[in-house]
């Protein structure tokens, strides 16, 4: 260093000596404190004993339906654990036989557990049956280190399956442990789909911990510091759903033996009343331990029972999509409601003929919707234009996620000029693509959930509420519900436009010549639209969207029946019966009678059913 720096360097050196010295004196002082003053105290804890943490599992939150009935409950189940330190490995074969497990499986489990601590019990098999439990009990003395914990498993107290919406819980995988961070450990149960997955953070609660003293042999000899450090487990929050499980069970029974989906929403707030995906499965299969062969069977089933058709399908909607085009055409001023087309049963564009099922003669917009005239909409699409149509499609919620609060959803597909250019190149597609889109065919993909939300907007004269199945968290002590906020928005579409399309839908159901007549309900006006979507892989898919009562809608619905044929004859009746069941109750009487009250909570909860109105 340069000479003139010498004095400065000397000072800095001294300062650093002081810093180092200071830290080491603090360390030595702390060592002195721990090892001289507290050594007796810590020595007592350690010489003979040491501290172990025993995790305390929180109780997973219950799930209640719209009417305050508990639909998902917990039941105790027994889980066999092995403490690696105490376990006598010669007993491995015996344990494996009793529990019908593979010895290598048990060995791997123990090895994984040992990496954390040899003194922490490792979960070997969850939900053992009574026979297994009694054999283990009889041999208790011969099986050191083998024990069991009482855990809870899901218990379903409803005739409805609601499997896709409730979702299942299962034991956490290694990958999930890594992804979710330190909160989960091997053997924990985690919500994996539906609401169990979507609300995992709230349903799960927070693990607690109990500190206890163990001796050198690892046996628990008592508590630690009279429980001062113990952390109470916090139970999960209970969910109050917007769902009506009576309607759910009824809709499931209607869909039995068919493939498809039913989604019913409360148009006043976007709450899901029912969501059926058929075929479904029995959730209780997953509540304990799911044998791998059941998993395999379900996963390889060609009917795909695990697939949520209500939120994950991507089928063209067929004629049910015609109102989107009608709205776009009216709003952009391309036509007036009085604009007429003469339908001769087909429409020629260039050298291609687009067909219709009937000869409708001269139709205006309302009668075109009522009779589902394709020729009218072929021409309307060419007049309106792709981007105008796509703009209103998007406004109505297509081509994007609805944001529903269950774990899985498909955004569908809504083509626009930009999309078509990307897909085919700017010169790779022509106006010839447009007529098909006008009648909801072609490269267009929607989910039944999006369609139900679309029916809701039509019912509401333009109010869009984010669909959701959970109303809020129910307080266990009082039974009151802390409601969750969901988004709402109002479409900028003029009232006369809504009036036109709604009138078309009303006539489609209520007047002769309409396609949705089979959804008619005695005593109430229904509005709806049928769809029959062509399907390159087999028979057509039947669609229906609608709402009721026409003047004061309380239910908006979408029904999809795969490969069933005409929407009017296969989807519309299902929708009609569901709306009737919801509006008039199980007895079919009018007005809706009070529900049978199995427990007091019902009366309370009925008062809280949201009284939000569409309001315009």
């Amino acid at each position, binding site marked *: *260093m*340069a000479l003139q720096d010498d004095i*400065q*360097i*000397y000072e*800095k*050196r001294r300062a*650093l*000596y002081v810093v*180092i*010295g200071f*830290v*080491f004196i*603090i*360390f*030595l002082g*702390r*060592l*002195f404190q*721990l*090892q*001289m003053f*507290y*050594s007796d*105290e*810590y*020595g007592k*804890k*350690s*010489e*003979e004993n*040491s*501290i*172990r*943490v025993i*995790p305390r599992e929180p109780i997973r939150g219950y799930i209640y339906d719209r009417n305050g009935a508990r639909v998902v409950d917990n039941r105790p189940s027994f889980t066999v654990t092995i403490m690696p330190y105490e376990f006598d490995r010669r007993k491995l074969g015996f344990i494996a036989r009793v529990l019908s497990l593979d010895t290598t499986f048990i060995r791997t489990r123990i090895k994984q557990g*040992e*990496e*954390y*601590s*040899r*003194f922490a019990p490792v979960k070997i098999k969850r939900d053992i049956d009574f026979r297994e439990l009694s054999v283990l009990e009889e041999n208790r003395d011969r099986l050191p280190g083998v024990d069991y914990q009482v855990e809870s498993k899901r218990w379903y107290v409803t005739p409805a399956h609601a499997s896709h919406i409730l979702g299942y819980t299962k034991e956490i995988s290694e990958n999930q442990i*890594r992804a*979710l*961070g*330190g*909160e989960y*450990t091997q053997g924990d149960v985690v919500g994996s789909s539906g609401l169990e997955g979507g609300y995992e*953070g709230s349903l799960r609660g927070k*693990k607690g*911990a109990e*500190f206890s003293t163990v001796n*050198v042999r*690892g046996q628990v000899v008592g508590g630690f510091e009279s429980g001062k*450090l113990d*952390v109470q487990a916090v139970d999960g929050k209970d969910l109050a759903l917007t769902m009506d499980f009576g309607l759910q069970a009824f809709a499931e029974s209607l869909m039995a033996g068919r493939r498809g989906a039913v989604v019913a929403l409360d148009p006043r707030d976007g709450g899901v009343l029912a969501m059926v995906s058929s075929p479904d499965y029995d959730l209780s299969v997953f509540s304990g331990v799911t044998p791998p062969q059941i998993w395999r069977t379900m996963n390889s089933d060609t009917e795909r029972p695990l697939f949520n058709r209500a939120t994950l399908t991507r089928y063209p909607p067929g004629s049910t999509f015609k109102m989107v085009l009608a709205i776009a055409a009216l709003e952009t001023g391309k036509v007036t409601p009085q604009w007429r087309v003469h339908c001769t049963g087909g429409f020629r564009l260039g050298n291609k003929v687009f067909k219709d099922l009937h000869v409708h003669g001269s139709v205006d917009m309302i009668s075109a919707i009522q009779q589902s005239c394709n020729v009218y909409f072929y021409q309307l699409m060419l007049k309106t234009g792709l981007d105008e149509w796509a703009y209103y499609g998007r406004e109505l919620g297509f081509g994007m996620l609805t944001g529903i609060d269950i774990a899985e959803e498909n955004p569908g597909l809504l083509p626009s000029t930009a999309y078509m250019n990307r897909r085919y190149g700017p010169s790779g597609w022509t106006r010839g693509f447009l007529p098909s889109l006008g009648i909801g065919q072609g490269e267009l993909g929607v989910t039944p959930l999006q369609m139900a939300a679309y029916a809701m907007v039509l019912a509401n004269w333009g109010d869009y509420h984010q669909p959701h199945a959970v109303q809020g968290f129910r307080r266990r002590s009082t039974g009151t519900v802390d409601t969750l906020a969901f988004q709402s928005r109002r479409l900028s579409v003029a009232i006369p436009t809504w009036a036109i399309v709604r009138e078309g839908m009303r006539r489609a159901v209520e007047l002769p010549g309409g396609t949705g007549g089979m959804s008619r309900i005695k005593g109430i006006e229904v509005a709806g639209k049928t769809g029959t979507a062509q399907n390159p892989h087999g028979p057509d898919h039947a669609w229906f969207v609608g709402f009721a009562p026409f003047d004061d809608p309380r239910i908006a619905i979408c029904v999809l029946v795969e490969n069933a044929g005409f929407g009017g004859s296969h989807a519309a009746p299902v929708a009609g019966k569901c709306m009737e069941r919801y509006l008039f109750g199980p007895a079919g009487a009018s007005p809706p009678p009070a529900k049978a009250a199995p427990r007091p909570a019902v009366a309370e909860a009925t008062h809280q059913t949201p009284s939000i109105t569409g309001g315009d």
Partner: protein
Amino acid sequence: MLNYLQRHFDLQIGISSLLLTIIGLVSVYSATYDARASDIFFKQLAWSGAGTVVLIAMALFPYRLLQTISIPAWLFSLLLLVIVLLLGKTVSGSTSWFNLGSFRIQPSEFAKITTVLALASYLSRSDVSLRNPRDLFLAGGIVLAPVALIMMQPDFGTAVIYGGMAFAVMYWGGASQFTLLSVVAPAAAAVGALFGTTPFLIVVAVMGVLIYLTKEHRLVAAVVFSFMVLVGISVQFIYDGMKPYQQRRIDTFLDPGADPLGAGYNILQSKVAIGSGGVFGKGYLHGSQTQLNFIPEQWTDFIFCVPGEEFGFIGAATVLVLFAVFLMRGVTLASKVKSKYASYVAIGLTATIATHVFINIGMALGLFPVIGVPLPFLSYGGSSLLSNAAMVGILMNLYTNRKEY
């Protein structure tokens, strides 16, 4: 003979680090003795052998060449850090490892050394002064480049080490109080903000007064002050935007009791292990805490418990004294070497090791939050042992060439 040795070798640094490594091997053996993890000990033994080779190589490395390759070596280590982010192996949430057969290499360990070398090389240029804002900015960049890459892994502990090193080097290089304060203030504001509004306001007030006292130009002081406040405020937004498990890591850092099954548990067990050691300890391989594996993976971050429990105050104090000798000697060396470059390297390497020691032992004694940094020479870990050996080798090299300008 002794005279000859003393003239050519830094005996204090050599002997203290040798003893610490031996204590480390003995401790790792004990910690893994009954954990059915004896392969850990043998791996550590193998790494020690490799470390010796690295140490000798660095001690005999041509002194002039060291300075020449400083900046290229730094660039190369940055490249490795980029590659590890793209191709590395993820262990407990951090992507910071390369696999080499059954061994793993952590480039961030070696980047510590190259960063010190590059910083020293830059600061020792005659036209560079830490009082010049432009030079200060470039010096900061040399440190922040690897830190940014390491934070992406993310490895918070290693990033903190760089902070300690940079602060010491800048202090040594004659940075003004204001400059040093400007480095500390945003970090202090960030930590304060995580604790809550009141601690944040206190930090802001104290730092504000200190900045005012440095009598820096008002405008510059105002900029630093506003930056500090901005960092503090944005920390809250960053925290809110984090995933729950990331938030939990921070919560546990601030309050280990918030995670009774994880970090809080380790601290409690560590205090019991050390405290129960008493004056003379429970005897080698007789520490019940150590032998019963109450602390998961004790051989890495909580290795200090082993001498504490099995050799008591005598053992733990010996480790402390050896570290104190090593670090004091490092500072002395930095003040004795004739070349500016050598002086910066010596202080940088010493500060790097000091930061590790302060954080790790402070954590084991329950005085400091849990940050995962290894204890030099003692903790199990090949990359850490090799980089420590390289640092010792370089320090000995500087000593041998202490009269060179």
